[in-house]
């Protein structure tokens, strides 16, 4: 009964979304005040209905209702309750329902927090969001109903994919979706502005915090996924240029460009059509990412059950939403001209360069992701694109990007006044180079060509980020959250660059073959396999190794890598043993039984790797702090 109610709520939610889209768009167009007013109520109704539907699915999982096909396929009585809830988004159907819920939660937030927006404009934004919601709800109901029954009911479920039985990965999809869907708000703001044919500083000021929060959530979502891959897949890296990773990274790059472009549009009334295009692209790439993951067009570690019908449906949805927005853009954007000018060394220039470089980087990732498809469609055979392509092609635009960002942080609006800032710019640069030299010669051995460049750029950026806040503090000026958040985010980017440089330059890795009591060398470290023992978890059994790592005869870490065998899905999983330290991680993953009592052990020592994710987290926190600036929500006061 409960699952049928959940299904029914979803049908009603679709009706509410239709009402929201219709009244939101038709109301302002026809000038009907009552229609405009009712849009908000439709949002609230849709939120309540989708929430109840999601609750019904969660209930089915918690109750182990294996008469529901989706529950039977993705849960099991032996699965702990926490993971039973996470199993709701463990596969395609439930992920979509979660997506729909996050979508309506964002919409509700816009509806409740938009009271200072002109009512017509707010209604149009909600109307566009309603259109998108219709697409998702229709998709769920037509091709991916999570409430479909299984007759007869299964005695027990087939269990959640063991890859997903992990706290970080349980949180990864909701955060990622929150970021993806959050970009729909900027998209809806852009569409509403184009429909109205008006785009001013107030518009940009409304759009900014929403975009920044979506960007921050996307940042954390991607970072969590990357961290999970590091300790769970047993590969030991932080990024693999997998098509699905790229699918989340492209919207991130565009969203990063968008928050900067929005700043210019707000402060100086420039880049209007560019900002609109970025707002459309950011969400479009999120949708495209979903398409690539769900349609089975690209094969990757993330492959959901591939289904061409679903692919066609999403493609039709993409055509309507993105095609519609781009057509609107072609028609209306020429009306929105920017008038002011600026000097070449002004902050506007730097933000423009950075925007272009970010888009070049996004285009490079896009080209690599789509290349296999293009080659296949043209009958040129299957092509695989790996890091030999991505690493250099991505660095090409991003290295100058970092330098521009470091200088740009010193520049002023309209007039660069770089001459007056020469001391700070050169000072931070020299200090950055000194830090880089100290790291290259002092900290680790075996630098590569780009190592000092990466360190210097990272340190320069980090120092430059704090020049403005320190200057303000010295002059006893107020330090608003917008400035503080911006400084934190850019300094974190510096930390990010330094840590990635260290990981890419100084990682030690080697695959050892160890029997019990034997040891193998990895650089100055020695790994000794002390023992192996069996262990039993709630739904798996495991082999747990104990490895003692010594450096120069001194014990530095005891690692416990595991190889788990999940009973129901008959899948083996590795749990890496990792010793975290503030300067480096010592890593071991158990490989294959080599026979004769020996095991392959993947041994790695990676300096500063945890700062990659820490920096991403701090970047996101910086974004949140900036978005919380009260002045975004007040009238005409200046926001930096």
């Amino acid at each position, binding site marked *: 009964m409960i699952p049928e109610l959940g299904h029914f709520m979803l049908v009603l939610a679709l009706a509410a979304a239709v009402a929201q889209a219709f009244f939101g768009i038709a109301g302002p167009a026809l000038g009907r005040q009552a229609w405009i007013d009712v849009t908000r109520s439709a949002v609230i109704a849709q939120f309540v209905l989708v929430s109840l539907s999601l609750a019904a699915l969660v209930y089915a999982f918690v109750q182990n209702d294996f008469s529901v096909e989706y529950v039977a396929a993705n849960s099991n009585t032996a699965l702990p309750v926490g993971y039973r809830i996470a199993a709701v988004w463990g596969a395609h159907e439930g992920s979509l329902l979660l997506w729909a819920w996050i979508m309506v939660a964002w919409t509700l937030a816009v509806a409740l927090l938009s009271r200072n927006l002109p009512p017509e404009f707010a209604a149009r934004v909600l109307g566009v969001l309603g259109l998108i919601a219709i697409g998702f709800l229709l998709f769920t109901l037509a091709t991916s109903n999570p409430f479909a029954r299984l007759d007869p009911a299964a005695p027990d479920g087939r269990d959640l994919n063991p890859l997903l039985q992990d706290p970080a990965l349980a949180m990864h999809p909701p955060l990622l979706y929150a970021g993806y869907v959050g970009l729909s708000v900027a998209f809806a703001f852009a569409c509403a502005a184009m429909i109205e044919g008006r785009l001013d500083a107030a518009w940009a000021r409304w759009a900014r915090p929403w975009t920044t929060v979506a960007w921050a959530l996307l940042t954390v979502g991607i970072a969590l996924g990357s961290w999970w891959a590091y300790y769970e897949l047993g590969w030991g890296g932080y990024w693999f240029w997998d098509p699905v990773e790229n699918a989340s990274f492209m919207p991130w790059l565009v969203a990063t460009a968008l928050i900067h472009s929005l700043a210019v549009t707000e402060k100086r009334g420039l880049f209007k059509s560019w900002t609109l295009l970025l707002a459309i692209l950011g969400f*479009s790439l999120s949708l495209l990412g979903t398409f690539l993951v769900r349609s089975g067009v690209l094969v990757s570690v993330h*492959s959901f059950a*591939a289904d061409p019908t679903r692919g066609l449906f999403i493609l039709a949805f993409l055509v309507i939403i993105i095609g519609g927005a781009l057509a609107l853009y072609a028609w209306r954007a020429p009306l929105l001209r920017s008038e002011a000018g600026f000097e070449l060394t002004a902050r506007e220039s730097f933000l423009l360069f950075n925007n272009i470089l970010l888009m070049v980087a996004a285009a490079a990732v896009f080209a690599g992701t789509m290349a296999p498809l293009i080659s296949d469609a043209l009958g040129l055979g*299957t092509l*695989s694109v790996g890091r030999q392509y991505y690493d250099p092609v991505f660095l090409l635009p991003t290295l100058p990007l970092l330098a521009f960002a470091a200088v740009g942080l010193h520049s002023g609006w309209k007039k660069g006044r770089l001459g007056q800032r020469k001391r700070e710019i050169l000072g931070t640069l020299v200090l950055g180079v000194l830090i880089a030299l100290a790291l290259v010669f002092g900290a680790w051995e075996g630098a590569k060509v780009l190592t000092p460049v990466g360190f210097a750029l990272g340190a320069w950026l980090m120092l430059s980020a704090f020049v403005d806040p320190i200057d303000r503090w010295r002059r006893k000026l107020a330090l608003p959250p917008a400035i503080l958040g911006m400084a934190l985010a850019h300094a974190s980017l510096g930390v990010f660059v330094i840590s990635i440089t260290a990981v890419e330059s100084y990682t030690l890795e080697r695959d050892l073959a160890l029997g019990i009591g034997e040891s193998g060398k990895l650089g100055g470290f020695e790994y000794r396999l002390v023992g192996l023992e069996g262990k039993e978890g709630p739904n798996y059994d495991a082999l747990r190794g104990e490895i003692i790592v010594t450096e120069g005869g001194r014990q530095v870490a005891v690692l416990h890598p595991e190889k788990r065998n999940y009973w129901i899905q008959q899948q083996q999983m590795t749990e890496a043993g990792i010793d975290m330290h503030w300067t480096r991680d010592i890593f071991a993953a158990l490989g294959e039984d080599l026979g004769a009592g020996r095991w392959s052990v993947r041994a790695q020592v990676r300096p500063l790797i945890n700062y990659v994710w820490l920096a991403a987290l701090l970047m996101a926190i910086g974004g949140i702090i900036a978005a919380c600036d009260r002045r975004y929500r007040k009238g005409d006061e200046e926001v930096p």
Partner: protein
Amino acid sequence: MNRFLLPAGLFGLLVVLLFVGIQRSSQKGIIPSALLGKPGPEFRLPSLDGSADFESASMRGRWHLLNVWGTWCPQCRVEHDMLLEIARSGEIAIIGLNWKDEDVLAQRWLAELGDPYDAVPVDRDGQVAVEWGVYGAPETFLIDDQGIVRHRHVGAMTPEVWAREFLSRMPTRQGAPDEPVLVPVPGAAVEG
């Protein structure tokens, strides 16, 4: 041309591409292989371990799996444990066609993760894979003792796929009957 139309135009091209992509991805499920029921193309390739060249004719007289893999392929890692499991069961010999890969990486992969293959022919330029109509790695062909292609699976080998698509097509096992049944999947047709 209006520069504001450019994004919409590019998007149009993308849609065409994606549409073709979907058509192709649906084909890979529905049309298993043009080779089905026919003898697989003959080939002769160098072996990964440097021993004598591998000749496809040597597969006659016994059932084989021809598994197409590469170290650059994430799904290949996913299916690797399953291949090891199959190899351990001794039910069938596995030939691992190493596709567009580097020898060093492939050798390291097998040393580290275990080697399920009876032989590893190296198809560096992908010519043999083209003749076999390989869509993408991983891909597994079931070949009978006469060299006839009996089945083809695109994507990772899983216990379900093994039981449903492969075991059910293989002749009754001649090996020791007291070996444990490999995959206890309810509802799957398992002969033997």
